Every structure is written in structure tokens, then in C-alpha cells.
């Protein structure tokens, strides 16, 4: 291999890898700079699966929705992207409706977050384990499911989360992409993520 080939080849490789890493960073920075902000309420999860190393597994109340609580589109399929329209008028964001496609123009005090529909029941196979027998139940994954914390502090956050006192501040853009900006405990901001 010639001298030129070695230098140009490795430069190309470094540029390619640097571009991928930079894209990861800039994409998140752009999202965190978004003026749209929502606080999402967490919910407890199975305590055997909650803590892996030094990050907290986050589950949100709005990851399990019922058709008597929110308006749910009819044409949803498992494993597809779904869009939850949120109301931002109260301290914690509340879901208004679940759509199969982006909502377009939103009203003032509303935002949208994109998730994946894990599965749903109801309709053809109505569930009987809730108050609402004929309701459709949605089980959703939001792509903000882990939060890395300083070593040794994860357990404290887990406890707050299991007491339902933990809120997650997320930045949102018009497409429904979300990034974690910080954490709130008992209505107080405890972690604030710097951009750099």
C-alpha cells in the first residue's frame, strides 16, 4: 500500500466515524434546544427489572392508555410508530389522543410525542381486568426509556420513581422526537442536562 493510500484511507475512515458520532451529538443538541418542553409522569415497574448498573429504567404513565381516557385512532397496528398528542396546560403533560400519523397543526398548549405501539387489546378481544370491559388498551414504548445517573445515585431515583414522585422533563420537536432534559422530584428540578 502506498504512502498516499494509507494517509487518505485512514483520513476517510476517521472522517466517516467522526461524522456518525457528530451526527449523534448534534441531533440531540438540536432537540434539547427545542422550545417545546413537557414533564412526563413515571410509573413503577417490576422491581426485579428496574435497575441495571447506573441507569434508571423509566416507564411512563402514558405508556399504557385506555380508550375511555384518550381518543384512540382505529387504524393502529402493533409495532408501528404512533403519535400521542399532549396537553401542556397542567404541571404534568396529559395525553389527549393517539394517532397513527403525525397530527399536522397543533393547538396552543399542545405538543406531540412519538412512540411505538407494542401491542393492544380490546375491541375484538375485550379485556376484563379493568373497570372498562370494552375498552381498547394500548401498550406503548416511548424512546426515552433510560436515564444514566452518577454512580451510586440510581437507587434513590428508583425509590422516587416507585413513589410516583419522579417527573421527566423532555424536549420535543414538531415531529414528535423526544430527548431527556432533566428530572423533577416532588415538583423540583434535580437534574438539568447541559448541552455540552
Amino acid at each position, binding site marked *: 500500500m502506498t504512502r498516499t493510500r494509507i494517509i487518505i484511507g485512514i483520513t476517510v*475512515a*476517521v472522517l466517516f*466515524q467522526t461524522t456518525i458520532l457528530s451526527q*449523534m451529538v448534534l441531533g440531540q443538541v438540536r432537540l434539547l434546544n427545542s422550545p417545546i418542553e413537557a414533564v412526563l409522569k413515571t410509573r413503577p415497574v417490576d422491581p426485579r427489572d428496574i435497575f441495571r448498573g447506573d441507569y434508571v429504567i423509566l416507564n411512563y404513565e402514558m405508556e399504557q392508555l385506555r380508550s375511555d381516557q384518550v381518543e384512540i385512532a382505529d387504524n393502529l397496528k402493533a409495532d408501528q410508530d404512533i403519535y400521542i398528542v399532549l396537553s401542556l396546560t397542567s404541571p404534568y403533560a396529559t395525553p389527549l389522543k393517539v394517532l397513527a400519523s403525525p397530527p399536522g397543526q397543533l393547538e396552543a398548549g399542545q405538543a406531540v410525542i412519538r412512540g411505538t405501539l407494542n401491542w393492544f387489546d380490546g375491541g375484538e378481544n375485550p379485556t376484563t381486568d379493568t373497570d372498562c370491559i370494552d375498552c381498547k388498551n394500548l401498550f406503548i414504548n416511548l*424512546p*426515552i426509556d433510560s436515564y*444514566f445517573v452518577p454512580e451510586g445515585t440510581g437507587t434513590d431515583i428508583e425509590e422516587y420513581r416507585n413513589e410516583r414522585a419522579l417527573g421527566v422533563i423532555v424536549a420535543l420537536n414538531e415531529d414528535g422526537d423526544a*430527548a431527556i432534559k432533566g428530572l423533577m422530584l416532588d415538583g423540583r428540578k434535580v437534574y438539568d442536562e447541559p448541552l455540552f
Partner: protein
Amino acid sequence: MWGSLYTKRLTQDLDQWVAKGWVTSDNANAIRASLDNGHAASRLPTIISILGAILIGFAAMAFVAANWQDMSKALRLGLLFAAMGATYGIAIWTLLKKWTGFGETALLIGTGLFGANIMLIGQMYHLPSDFSAGMLAWGLGAAVTAWAVRSRSALIASQLIFLSWFFNDVFSETLQLTYLLPWLATTVLAFRINWAPAKHMTMLGLLAWLLGNVPVLTDMFALGPWEALTTVTFLLTLAWIAAIWGEASGFPFARTAQAYLSISVVVVLWFTQVADELVASHTTLTALALTIPLTLAAATFALRNIPQLKPLDILAFGALPALPLLAGFTMNEESGPVLWIMAPLILGLSIWLVTLGARQLNRFLVNLGFAAFGAEALFLYFETFGTLLDTAAFFLIGGVFLIAGAFLLQRMRQRTLPPPPASVATEEVAP
């Protein structure tokens, strides 16, 4: 260490070969001189440095779990990019100095750091735990490095990363066709730089992809388990036929590909006779009606001009996909496939492999045939006598059976394979 042992052994052998007149003194001296140029011993530092590279890679990844909150994000990002850049700088320097082994090691560390950086940035910005996307990005970075500088270490790393990426998604319900793109890119490079380990990874990747997609294919085409096994055998047989044709046409690596494909076919077919848990439902004649004529047509078309092969071989290739379906059709729902039907067929297949290998001068096929024959004989012994004899007699007869079998196999193997070319050398060298 191995290099010095090899040198010692070869030096002793050369003395004997010169004394017997097989090798001239001049040639022996030339061989000894080639051993002294340091090539044989030069691999050890490279191997040690590669092990060091792997340790450094693990150290970087262990950083994920470490507490580095005291640093600002900008400083952390600077560290990550600087470490990666410095490593590639060292790679340029060592490769320009013609220290290829150390250069490859630096490229491997750089590739490892790139993967670690993906994880660390994901951690810093709390990115969703999308393992699949991270692995794909890592594999692409490694593949670009491999292509850009024809790096062996980056190539093998990218092959392993892409394989892990595929395995992560293999349990999804859709056919994983996207793996074939990076597989093709790394395969082309493996053949361009003509490096055997990467070529072997190519074959392993293809077989893993094929076998990993079997459950999805089964669901997609609503196949029963036996039809799925038939389809897998059919696809492997087609690839095997293509490899034989490739060898006859002078394609490199075609013989090694035959080894992988033939052993895969034997394993799948052997599995059919012990697949007690597969039910006989959904077994139809459709697969039989499709796969046998297609295999026969492919074998006839591809192998008709290869003088070492006979019409019987073409028929045997055509019959291979029928074996799983036969097992499925004749199986007893409680005890599984019928032994007296499947065992003679597997033994027949083993003997055919030996004869095919002998005619092709393919030592691997001959050995595979004998190994399959021995394994089947042992299986039959366990199946038929294991329940009849008490434990001591079972092991005694089994031991005698194994020793006798090994002796018989070795005698048969010696008769089947052509003699080593030593006598030719004697004729040419002897005065």
C-alpha cells in the same frame, strides 16, 4: 514459541530428507535460509499486541459504567474524539513505517474506540437503548476502515459486528434481508485481499443468515416443520452444487465453501432422524414436487461437464431435499422418525460422500463421509442396544465397537484416498 518448534522440527526433517535423497542440499539450505528471515517468529508480537488492543477496547467500554459526571460534556466529547483520532494517527505512523502488525493493531483499537464512543455518547445524552442501530453504525465504521486501508483486523471486526447485529434482530418476525448488504460488502473485500479467516467468516455469516431466517421463512410461507427442513436442505444443496461448479470453473475458495455447505447438509439431515418433537402436521407433497426437480435441474445444468462426477451424483443431489420430507411422512407421532427407514439412508449418504470425495480428490468430503458413517453407526448402537444391555456390557461392547470402528475407518480411508505425492518427489529428485 510455535515458530521455533516448527523450525526445529523442519530442520530435523530436512536432514533426513537430504540423507534419503528426497531434497537436494541446495534446496534444503534455501529452505533453512527462508526460516531465518524472521517471518515465522514475527507473529508473536502482533498477536500479543492484538490481545492488548482487545484489553484496551474493554477498558474503554468499561468506562460506560464509570462515574465521570465531574467532567463537562464538552471535555468528555473532546476526550473521546481525541482518543480515537490519536489511535488512527498511530495507525498511520506505524503503517508508514511498514510495521504492518502494529498498524493493524492500532486500526483494531480505533475501531473498538469508535464502538465505545457510540455507547458513551448514547450514555451522555440518554439516547434510547437502540442496540441494533448502535451495532449497525459501529459495523459501518469498521467496514469503511477496512475498505479504506484494506485492513484485515477492521474487516474481521466488521464481520463479527454485523453478525452480532443480525443476531440481535433475528428473532423479529420479518425476513432479515438487510444483513446481506454489509455481508456482501465485507465478502467482496475478503476476496479482494484474499485473506482466509475473513473468507471463512463470510461462509459462517451466510450460513448463520440462512439458518437464522428459517423460522421467519416458515411463517411467511406457512410451512410445516418438515417442509422447512426440506427447504433449508434444498437451499444448502443448491449452494453446494454452485460451489462444485465454482471449483471446476476455477473460482477461489470454492472448495472450502463446499466443506461448509456439505457439513451443513449432513447436520440438517442427521437432525431429521432425531427430531422427535416435530409433529407431522402440515407436511404436503408441494415441497417435494418443487425441490427435487429444481435440484435435479440445477445439478444437471451445473455439473454435467465435470468429468469426475457421474449421473448417480446428480441423482443423489436431487434426492437430498427429499430426506427430511420422507422422515416427516413416515414418522410415528409418538416415537418420531422411523429408524429403519432413516438410518440406511443416512448410511447411504455417508458412503456416497466418501465416493464423491474420492472422485473429486476432496479429502474433507471423504473424512466427512467417514465421520457421518461412524456417528450414525454409534447412534444406531445407542438406539438399539442401549436399552437392551446392562451398563457394564453396554460400555464394554461400545468400547470394542469404537476401537474396531476406528481401525476399520482408517483402513478404508487409506484405500480410498490417493497416496501422498512423496514417491513423485523421489523420482524427480533422485539422481
